[in-house]
């Protein structure tokens, strides 16, 4: 077993082992166990990333020779999403150490969430993806239940029902494709489907099923209701995962299916399907942004912003040039960091000032200047002003779309900056220029670690924006292979 494969299993198993340890040993504080296991996962995934960037993609098949088995396929892209996952879960640990939630009920699903995301991004097998999606949905449901608000159980139930429906629709598509192509290994299935023919109505049907199922898990309009609901109900660190990582995992699965199984040729052969998804995604971008205008509550605003951002990301993927796909990937990563940190800032403010809405945010900057500055910095990144990552992602997507002659996409991507500005500025305005009229639980109510996490994230959004070319160099090979027609 090579080092890469060892690391592959390490990132999959380390959080799971951590979860097991938390479950079995109630004496030790689960926080320490989680930190150790996620810290090791972070090291392992960084090493994995380095190796995959240096040596190129890896395929590993686990199972009986000639019999059933599970294929793992990893490249720089999968490890990017994996890194996002582990960076976020590790960062959130800094926040929840004092703020909670505490206890096994939280940490077991928390760690399994991490494993499940790694599973989704490393699987090369469509059933494997399904299995890990189911684990992800279970873990998310448990995490949502850890909230303190009334009715979280109902919210969690509703979420599970909706998400399971999405996963099932995806599964129907997979079953159909496997029936047509005879294999559940993504690449091999891809060749088989090419032989069946991309204009075959059953092939198209299976694609549509998979897409709709995953679109529900990504929370594209009009399938976005669950995200708004869970986002609002869950505790803030859980919202950070729901906004930052959960749709990202589903988008990643979609990316694999799009390019590995169905390939660019499928998109070219079925312009109606392609355009349908592109304009659907653009619609999501617009509607998400517009619905965000009605939100006085910070979490509601963030939820709709997430929906619009994933519209942008999916649109970029469908443009399907190297430039645009890279834009989507860096946007996926940057958005995860920014939105995750934003949820934590919202949590910080709620803990210290009991404030949730625009009006309650009034004048906080005078009392908590650093938190306010982090809020402003993250706001700038979310709006997408240069040189933050939010701008860079849009730039690549816009340039890529224009190269393909999709000027409508370019126009909306550029224009979305202005739409985002419109609903973010009222919060910033209130924080800085409003008058304080609420409770202040004192600066000791939040720890400096919590503040450090969000300030770091704000700086990271700037750093990623400035270092986009380095990212591009790391991801170039993987994206080239992805977008090019597969050869075997």
């Amino acid at each position: 077993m090579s080092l890469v494969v060892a690391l592959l299993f390490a990132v999959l198993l380390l959080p799971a082992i951590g979860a097991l340890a938390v479950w079995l040993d109630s004496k030790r504080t689960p926080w320490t166990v989680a930190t150790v296991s996620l810290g090791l996962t972070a090291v392992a995934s960084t090493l994995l990333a380095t190796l995959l960037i240096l040596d190129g993609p890896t395929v590993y098949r686990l199972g009986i020779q000639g019999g059933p088995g599970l294929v793992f396929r990893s490249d720089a892209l999968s490890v990017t999403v994996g890194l996002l996952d582990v960076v976020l879960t590790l960062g959130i640990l800094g926040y929840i150490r004092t703020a909670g939630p505490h206890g096994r009920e939280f940490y077991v699903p928390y760690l399994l969430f991490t494993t499940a995301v790694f599973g989704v991004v490393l699987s090369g097998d469509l059933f494997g993806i399904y299995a890990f999606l189911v684990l992800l949905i279970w873990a998310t449901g448990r995490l949502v239940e850890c909230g303190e608000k009334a009715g979280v159980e109902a919210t969690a139930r509703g979420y599970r029902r909706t998400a399971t429906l999405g996963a099932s629709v995806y599964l129907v598509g997979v079953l159909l494709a496997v029936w047509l192509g005879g294999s559940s290994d993504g690449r091999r299935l891809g060749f088989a489907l090419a032989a069946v023919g991309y204009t075959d109505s059953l092939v198209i049907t299976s694609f549509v099923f998979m897409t709709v199922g995953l679109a529900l898990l990504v929370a594209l309009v009009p399938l976005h209701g669950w995200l708004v609901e869970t986002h609002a109900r869950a505790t803030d660190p859980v919202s950070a995962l729901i906004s930052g990582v959960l749709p990202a995992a589903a988008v990643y699965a979609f990316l694999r299916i799009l390019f590995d199984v169905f390939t660019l040729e499928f998109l070219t052969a079925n312009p109606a399907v392609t355009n349908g998804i592109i304009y659907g995604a653009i619609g999501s971008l617009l509607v998400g942004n517009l619905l965000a205008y009605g939100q006085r509550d910070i979490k509601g605003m963030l939820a709709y912003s997430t929906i619009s951002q994933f519209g942008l990301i999916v649109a970029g993927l469908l443009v399907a040039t190297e430039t645009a796909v890279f834009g989507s990937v860096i946007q996926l990563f940057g958005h995860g960091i920014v939105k995750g940190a934003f949820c934590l800032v919202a949590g910080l403010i709620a803990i210290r000032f009991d404030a949730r809405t625009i009006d309650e945010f009034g004048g906080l900057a005078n009392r908590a200047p650093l938190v306010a500055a982090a809020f402003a910095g993250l706001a700038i990144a979310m709006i997408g002003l240069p040189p933050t990552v939010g701008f860079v992602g849009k730039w690549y997507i816009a340039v890529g779309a224009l190269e393909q002659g999709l000027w409508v996409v370019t126009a909306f991507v550029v224009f979305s900056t202005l739409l985002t500005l419109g609903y973010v500025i009222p919060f910033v305005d209130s924080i800085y220029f409003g008058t304080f009229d609420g409770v202040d639980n004192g600066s000791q109510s939040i720890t400096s670690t919590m503040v450090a996490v969000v300030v770091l994230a704000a700086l990271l959004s700037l750093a990623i924006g400035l270092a986009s070319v380095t990212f591009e160099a790391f991801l170039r090979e993987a994206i080239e292979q992805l977008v090019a027609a597969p050869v075997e």
Partner: protein
Amino acid sequence: MSSLEAHLEWRPTRNTLAEVAMTDPRPLAAIAIAFFAIVVIVAGRRRPAIRDGTPIVASLLTIAVIASMVPDVLAGRQPTTNLGALVAGIDLSVQADPLGTIFALVASCLWAVTAVYSLGYVRGEGLEHRTRYTAALCLSIGSGIGVAFASNLLVLVIFYELTTVGTYPLVAHRGTERAREVGYEYVAYVIGGGTLVVGGAVIVYTLAGSVTFAPGGIPGLADAAAGAPTAARVAIVAMLAGFAVKGAIMPLHAWLPRAMVAPTTVSGVLHAVVVVKSGVFGIARTVLEVFGPETTADLGVGTPLAIIAAATILLGSLLALRQDDLKRRLAYSTVSHLSYVVLGIAVLVPAAVVGGLFHIAAHAVAKLALFFCVGALAIETDVKKVSEIAGVGRRMPLTMAVFAVGACSLAGLPLFVGFASKWYLLVGGAELSPIVPAVLVVSGALNVAYFWPIVYGAFFETPERADPKPLLEGPMGGTPGSDEPNKHSHVTMDGRWKRLPPTGVEASPALVVPLLALALAIIALGIWADHLVVLELARAAADASFGVIVR
């Protein structure tokens, strides 16, 4: 050979001036000083001496760095700092070229004046949140210098949006309902403009494969524009419209008069030092160094732009006539004068371009002086309206004298800097059409019309014997010798201004000294324009873009 043709002598090879880039940390340093100053200000927020002194030191350092580059720039070298790729195909690079150096030099010199004045102003006004205010001022100006030195469109956009980030807290500074509303509107306007520019940049990058400024136009863009004229036209219109928002070109100007709610120092910075200037500067870059004069003309954009600018000049001046609020009157005057710059560029004639670029400096110095006069006036006498101006010259003789100097300059009277820039505009504009000089002459007269009542009222009227203002709404020819008390004045019959000698005791030295420095600059630049680098830089910039030598 007409005298006009004598101004232009064709140069055999093109762009030779601009082709020598030399690696040099100074352009980056010129920008970084202001950003470093922010750190010092925030760190020293509990020590007023550090907080308030830092901008002055930083501005002087910045001037020194920029001034040290001027000889290189004039010798045709371009000090360049390249920090490597920003996004694929575009470098994060800043450079001191003639066009950028004009703007950077003006901004940094006026920053020093502003920094001193600001000290006197915040104390006189009792402004709160001084750390935020001082830091935001540094951010605005530092990013303004970044706009000047940006070597490509994307870097320019970065600093352009940063200017907005810096000025937004300044505009909304007072935190009143109205200030917040205006701040919100300001951001919506200027980020909207910035977004249009980004859209244009995406198209330019797709067409030409580069967004790096090149005098005379980005290589390859002309051919690409010929191949895809619609896309190119969309790009140039988007970029010009985007920059025109900050440049307050009608009909995109509405934010500027409303932003007068900000503290007066901030208004000065908006009007003279960085903000609106970065808008017209962006237009200059777009026309001269992105598309190039030829492609701009080929796309049929030059003449419409000139017409819009001419209309803005006249309408802005006419609207200024009607304003009673001093700051609003100055604001409409700015709207009109910014279009002098745009008109100069849009005419696409070398001499006019020189005039337009020189007017960036000419207008900046004069308008800053006027705003600072109005600020000092408000602090010392609480006079904020033209209708309250009568007799104020007795109380503040030096301030109002400086106001008169600034007004003369903007009206374009000889021996003041405004004449020098206007001369080039007249000479160059005449080459396109006699309408251009006509517009400028009419506008000069309107300038006199809206400034003269202020100067006249301040020095030659008393609160008891004053014409109703604004004059436009009073009876024709005024009401000479009327003994009726002026209804509009808040000063009662017995509330005469105390007569003060012109020795500078009329206000805090922190307010008076910057004013005198500006007046000196207006006159010096007016008399020795040929010897004070700005004009020379403007010529070098026009030379490079047109491939001709402008005398």
